[in-house]
């Protein structure tokens, strides 16, 4: 019986998602012009659904204090209240308003994941570009170092480092950023190597251009496209890794509202047939799916496949 109900709601959600994505595509195509208009008009429904979800998350994250009916950390009622008009999604294990915490969680969880990805990208791509352009011992040294780091499963490595440095938001961001930058390094180095051997880079070298000019003016414009797609994918990995750590109680710490730890705190409700704890987990899944859809579309566009 539970399964049938689940199936029914899955179908309803799917239909609603398709309708919303279709509407969003019409709207986006209507308000834009030129190149942008053409791209958005021809975007597949999955991609426009992804863009819509990302847009909604952004709005919620920015306007969190306006949207949330209660403050993030205030205990407003008794614990584990059911869904009512006053508390839309009930209350959590301490009696805080679940809906408000979901809204603030958008800001905290997504914001921290975004900052971590940006940092990982900064470290990884700068080192990757340098290694491929300079070559020699720098390239050898960095590549072998990354090889060794990648021989340890990333979650296990993160757990080891968190034991040593303790669990706080800053160490979490630094640890995950360093671990993920090894993956970014691999990609950016590989992509740059293909560009460095081009004649125009050789010509610029012979002209006597400096390293900074070579990287920023000759190489970077030609490696941006794959790196941007990688940023989307990397964000998904980082987001899932941080959520997993928070769920394990080792990531973002209470009382900060965060989706991973919200699942952990309220998990007991599931065995009583209440789906509230599934909502934050679902919010994580929804954003990851959305980003994946958009990245898929961008990769498809960049590859120029017309099949």
């Amino acid at each position: 019986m539970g399964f049938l109900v689940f199936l029914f709601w899955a179908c309803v959600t799917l239909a609603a998602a398709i309708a919303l994505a279709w509407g969003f595509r019409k709207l986006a195509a209507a308000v834009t012009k030129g190149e942008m208009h053409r791209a958005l008009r021809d975007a597949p429904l999955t991609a426009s659904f992804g863009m819509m979800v990302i847009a909604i998350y952004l709005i919620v994250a920015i306007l969190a204090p306006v949207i949330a009916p209660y403050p993030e950390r205030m205990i407003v009622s008794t614990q584990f209240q059911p869904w009512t008009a006053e508390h839309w999604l009930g209350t959590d294990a301490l009696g805080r308003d679940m809906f408000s915490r979901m809204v603030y969680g958008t800001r905290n969880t997504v914001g921290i994941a975004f900052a971590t990805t940006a940092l990982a990208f900064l470290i990884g791509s700068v080192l990757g570009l340098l290694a491929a352009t300079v070559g020699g011992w720098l390239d050898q040294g960095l590549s072998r170092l990354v090889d060794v780091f990648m021989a340890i499963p990333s979650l296990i490595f993160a757990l080891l480092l968190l034991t040593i440095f303790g669990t706080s938001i800053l160490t979490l961001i630094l640890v995950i950023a360093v671990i993920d930058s090894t993956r970014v390094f691999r990609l950016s180095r590989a992509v740059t190597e293909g560009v460095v051997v081009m004649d125009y880079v050789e010509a610029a070298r012979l002209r006597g251009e400096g390293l900074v000019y070579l990287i920023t003016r000759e190489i970077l414009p030609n490696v941006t496209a794959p790196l941007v797609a990688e940023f989307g994918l990397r964000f998904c990995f980082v987001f899932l890794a941080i959520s997993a750590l928070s769920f394990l109680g080792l990531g973002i710490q209470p009382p900060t509202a965060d989706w991973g730890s919200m699942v952990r705190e309220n998990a007991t409700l599931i065995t009583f047939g209440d789906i509230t704890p599934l909502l934050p987990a679902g919010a994580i899944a929804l954003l990851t799916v959305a980003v994946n859809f958009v990245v898929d579309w961008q990769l498809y566009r960049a590859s120029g496949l017309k099949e």
Partner: protein
Amino acid sequence: MTLVLRMIAQRLALGLLTLFVVSLIIFGATELLPGDFAEAVLGQAATPETVAAIRRELGLDQPFYIRYVDWLWGAVQFDFGSSLAQRGRPVADMILGRLGNTLFLALYAAAMAVPLALMLGILAALWRNSLFDRVTNSSALSAISFPEFFVAYILIYILAQGGWFPSMARMPASADLGEKLYRSFLPALTLTLVVTAHMMRMTRAAIINLLSSPYIEMARLKGMRPSRVIVHHALPNAIAPIVNVVAINLAYLITGVVVVEVVFVYPGLGQLMVDSVSRRDIPVVQAVALIFAAAYVLLNLTADVISTLSNPRLMYRK
């Protein structure tokens, strides 16, 4: 034949070297600790005398390389020193029973995931762009995007609530195999779903890549039956990519197992590691990390050897 043996010996040596460097990182990372071990254990209660006493007890007054060699020599004999949180209890004792449980769970999940994923992946590749392909592919993409604990709790919600399967996977030592399989069904199913999605997509990509190669087109143009093209021409060459896919995903199981064990309160290594991280029980974390990393390196090594064996051209690679 000697060539094959030499290749395997080479890979093994490389794997051992990797493991050695990994162990150096795992042990050396504690050197980054602000202060040291002793202060971390004592916390607020640290006075200069107690710190010095603990240092002597744990051998921290020795230089780094001596402690490392001691630790490594112990680790080779499965002796990881004693736990910090439960003073005096050997780490090996805490690990031993749990290692078996984790291996059992991983093998259980692999036994379900590998055949399922290979079948789905090969079918999706053969019927490319059909409805079946689109549905499996997009569900796999969604499953990859789900956090493991989301999948786990959905399964609990659907399957455990009705009382079909237990949501807490306690494993009494007396349980026989059938009982164990029943109790750990939900964690194994969670892992299966997550791993199958990855494995299926990679199998599909590998097979599609293979089917677009010229000799397959040639066989088709000769008018060969499609089934014969697949069995005689495609499959022998598909072994290398498929083995690679399987090994990479089994390695992925290693990290998946940590979250899943916590959700289902399964008494395995992953849960021990998470508990030890929050208690900052460094010897236990080091030992478990070393075991996981060794399994990871070993799986990648096996994949490398098997795919080289299945494609002799790789043996002469410079």
